């Protein structure tokens, strides 16, 4: 019997989760004060998403 877990995430959901988790880890790793951590996490998440969506659109002309 197979009891493995399974997630079906869209591309966007996977990117969002990945960006969020990595941003949180980097924020806690590189900043000490809570307010600095929050700023870092928000900024890092924003850049992750901006660059991810930007690269996605840059590849769009070559997708077919």
């Amino acid at each position: 019997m197979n009891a493995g877990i399974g997630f079906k995430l869209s591309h966007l959901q996977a990117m969002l989760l990945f960006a969020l988790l990595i941003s949180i880890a980097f924020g806690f790793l590189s900043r000490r004060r809570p307010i600095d951590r929050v700023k870092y996490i928000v900024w890092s998440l924003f850049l992750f998403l901006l660059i991810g969506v930007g690269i996605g659109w840059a590849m769009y002309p070559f997708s077919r």
Partner: protein
Amino acid sequence: MADETTAPAAAPQDSRRETMAFVIGVAGWLVPGLGHALLKMWGRAAMFFLTVSMLVILGAGMRGNVFSSSGNDAFDALGYLADLGTGTFYLVARSLETNGADVSHAGGDYGTRFLATAGVLNLLAVLHAYEAARGRKA
């Protein structure tokens, strides 16, 4: 006149601190966040445990490739090293993925990246805990 080419013997306290730093590094590798917990950095410990465990659970749930030691090429070996970075969570990933990897769809491929990222992130946390234990500003 003292011989300047001879380094002074390391103080016992330095040696003890180095040993403790090594133990903390190994503990942090085995259980993500444990190194920071031993240093009483509770926030970092909790967050590293949560982020690494979430990445492993998501990666295995998306049926990413959990590399084994019997890889065929250098990329498999690198993937294995990255996956091993999660410590005991490597075994968790293997036990969660009872259906095996499926990288024929994008989700499985993303899962492989999630697992490798979890390992590399944990190694980064281990280095951080090790340096903090040695007295470097963290």
